[in-house]
């Protein structure tokens, strides 16, 4: 009799169901919080991989889409920008000139347009005669992975896909050249 009562107590289904639902909701909320609070990858850490759909005319190796992993073996200068961002205009010409200078040394410049409107982004690329690969940040997933706090921001990624340096704000010629030359020297 007592054993039956205790078995009934142990299998109280409504209570179990409520606890399962509460725990599931809490678990999902925790997962969401962890995902939202992604920290910016620091130098020495592996660069988060992502796939990009390039703007027409701004492809890489003739491919309309590529992932960062596809670029492994190259030094990647990953630049976040937007056509509405005034400081981005300061560095736009420098980035293009540097791309032309280092393109044949295994350095790939990649522009990621953050929260931009395609016609405006394309007009910006044409205005600065930019020729290096550029892609929109669809659903701002790449910006979230790299936890950018604004534009422009630039990540230098080495040939093994590891973050080498990070630069916040518009970059100047001295800094850009120094970092790329150092990366090239280190192989």
């Amino acid at each position, binding site marked *: 009799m007592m054993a039956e009562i205790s078995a009934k107590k142990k299998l109280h289904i*409504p209570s179990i169901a*409520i606890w399962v*639902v*509460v725990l599931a*909701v809490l678990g*999902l*909320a925790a*997962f*969401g919080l962890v*995902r939202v609070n992604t920290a910016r990858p620091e130098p020495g850490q592996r660069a988060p991989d992502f796939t990009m759909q390039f703007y027409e005319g701004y492809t890489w190796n003739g491919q309309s889409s590529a992932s960062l992993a596809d670029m492994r073996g190259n030094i990647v200068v990953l630049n976040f920008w*937007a*056509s*509405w961002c005034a400081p981005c205009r300061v560095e736009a010409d420098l980035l293009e000139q540097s791309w032309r200078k280092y393109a044949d040394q295994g350095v790939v410049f990649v522009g990621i347009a*953050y*929260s*931009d*409107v395609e016609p*405006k982004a394309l007009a910006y690329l044409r205005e600065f005669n930019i020729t290096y690969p550029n892609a*929109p940040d*669809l*659903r*701002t*997933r790449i910006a979230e992975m790299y936890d950018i706090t604004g534009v422009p921001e630039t990540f230098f990624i080495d040939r093994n896909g590891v973050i080498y340096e990070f630069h916040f704000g518009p970059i100047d010629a001295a800094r850009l050249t120094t970092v790329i030359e150092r990366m090239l020297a280190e192989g």
Partner: protein
Amino acid sequence: MNRYLVWLLRYAWLLLLLLATPAMAQEGGRLVTDDEVNAIAKELYCPVCESTPLDVCETQACADWRELIHAKLAAGETRQEILAYFGENYGDRVLATPPARGLSLLLWVWPFVAFIGGALIFGRYMVNMRRAAAASENEKAMRETAVSYPIPPTKDPYIARIEQELKGE
């Protein structure tokens, strides 16, 4: 001379109207008001500033987005299509009303789960309370009608202990 001038103006106006019609058709064929743009912009958030609705934000990014809404409305797209475009391209976080998918689904499901859970707990509490009241009534009635008789002493020490504890000894 004046008659010729009036005639010329009349037909020049007609010619201008005829030329303007295909141009309007090419642009989508309908005029879009700022109110229409703002009605949709109100349902979106600025991608740069935190928690600022698109219709009141003064950044260039938002001005570009409003321009895009204008172009899409002129092209005949519906409110739903435009909002879906922004969600697809800039992420659900720019939508004032998050769609019921992914983690946003929690926001939609949680109030119902909480309501059902609350109703179950409340229902259970009420049932228990009623049972307790009924039991108390029964006990009272039994006491009133009870005939006292000696309870035979039990030999089981466990039952004896329970009885002792029930008596509060």
